[in-house]
């Protein structure tokens, strides 16, 4: 009991002694770990560079202002490419993740072995950033929008697949039983009892991923996978920071609009 008597007086403590010691030990190990990690980073840092970091940052911002608006027209094409990469990539990802989620959900999976396989695909896809997929695909299918689309799709499979299979596992089992009792075939059970229940989650997840993908696809050009990132990379390599600022403003506007749209759609389906 956290309540002890000493000198005929009650002393109350929030936690038991053992628990309190465990918490202190946790803090101790955590702080120790942080200090060790910081030491490793500090050893690999050239601290002399930091002396003029403020000056560098300020001069960078100064060179960005005012943005070079003259290139706005020529950025519209790449921006359209970026939107296409995100949208088509998401659609492709959804198309692949959809059957995968049914294989991965405990209550709809045909076989535990299939489930394990589907989960492995989902985890691998989720662990690897879209930019890494893009680097790989640029060497495989060549630079361009196509590599970007596939990269976004590959990264989205894991995200959508995971949220979707969790939604399938959380469905109410009564409609499923009712439809099964009417003598429906397996596919009919999926279509008439599982699908209507996960439809809102499905739309919400897809739209949410689309809005994340817009953000991700803005940088794919850095590794050659098309879109506005190509222009950003070129401007950075030319040290044309005014043009970089224009690209930033366009990205900011696009992301804000897509986020607003996605939030609206998600609110109306949930």
């Amino acid at each position: 009991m956290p309540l002890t008597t000493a000198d005929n007086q009650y002393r109350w403590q929030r936690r038991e002694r053992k628990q309190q010691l465990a918490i202190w030990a946790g803090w101790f190990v955590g702080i120790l770990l942080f200090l060790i990690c910081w030491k490793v980073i500090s050893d690999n840092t050239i601290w002399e560079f930091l002396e003029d970091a403020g000056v560098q940052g300020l001069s960078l911002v100064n060179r960005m202002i005012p943005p070079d608006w003259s290139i706005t027209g020529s950025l519209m094409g790449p921006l359209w490419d970026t939107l296409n990469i995100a949208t088509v990539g998401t659609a492709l990802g959804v198309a692949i993740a959809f059957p995968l989620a049914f294989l991965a959900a405990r209550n709809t999976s045909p076989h535990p072995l299939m489930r394990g396989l589907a989960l492995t695909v989902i985890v691998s896809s989720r662990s690897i950033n879209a930019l890494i997929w893009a680097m790989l695909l640029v060497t495989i299918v060549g630079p361009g929008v196509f590599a970007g689309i596939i990269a976004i799709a590959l990264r989205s499979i894991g995200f959508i697949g995971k949220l979707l299979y969790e939604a399938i596992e959380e469905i109410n089992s009564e409609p499923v039983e009712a439809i099964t009792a009417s003598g429906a075939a397996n596919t009919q059970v999926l279509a008439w009892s599982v699908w209507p229940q996960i439809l809102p989650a499905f739309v919400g997840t897809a739209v949410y991923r689309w809005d994340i993908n817009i953000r991700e696809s803005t940088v794919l050009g850095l590794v050659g996978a098309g879109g506005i990132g190509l222009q950003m990379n070129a401007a950075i390599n030319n040290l044309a920071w005014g043009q970089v600022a224009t690209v930033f403003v366009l990205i900011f506007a696009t992301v804000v609009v897509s986020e607003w749209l996605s939030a609206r759609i998600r609110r109306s389906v949930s």
Partner: protein
Amino acid sequence: MNATASRIELAKKGHWKPLPFISDQRLRWGLNIAVLVYLLLVYFSVEVNWGRVAEGMERGLNFIASFASPDFISRTDEIFLGIRESLTMTFTSTVIGVILSVPIGLGAARNIAPLPVYLFCRTLIALSRTFQEIIIAIFFVAMVGFGPLAGVITLAFATIGFMAKLLAEDIEDSRADQMEAVRSTGASWLQWINYAVQPQVMPRLIGLSLYRLDINFRESAVIGIVGAGGIGATLNTSINRYDYDTSAAILLIIIAVVLASEYFSGYVRKWVQ
């Protein structure tokens, strides 16, 4: 009402149909047409060089095959240093980011902060959330030079946007009567935050921090491309040299670490709640 009645009539004749997902007919058809038009536009504007794609297929198969023979040996030193740097960057930046996101999250909650503070914090959050980590990394690398420090600052900044937004939303959703009760005892501002707000948001804050640890590790594997430290530079080099066996080894390590951290965070989350 009328529509429901006619649906029932139709159902009696055996013409039952499920309710459409989008009930407004005009919106439904408008969306269908918009999707069709968009697909046509995409079809005509996205150029795919199928010849090049076919050419690359062999290389693609090579890459997939290399997962069967990952090469951990020939670049052990680079891989070890890169992964160590990624892990240390992940941990440090998450700790710094979470600590900084607490005051900013408090400032971004409308039921706690005065309007000027609220607007300032929300702007900071919007800036951090809009730009992909790579863009932020480019900026900080230009500021503090190549190396893991730029990566730590980048990830910490990105963590602030993520954590502070969710924390602020959580505080705005928390129960007002508990806050009022503590306030009515004459508690100071700090006591008020400590006893009325903190207990309500703490479990979720811990869960989100662990989730962010996971995200930061995945991001730390790419910001190396622009010189911000971590395994990204090694991975980029190995891919550009078509040294797929080494790439496969690095990707397998990344997947293993993500899996381990997911397992660990699930365990901690169960323990916290």
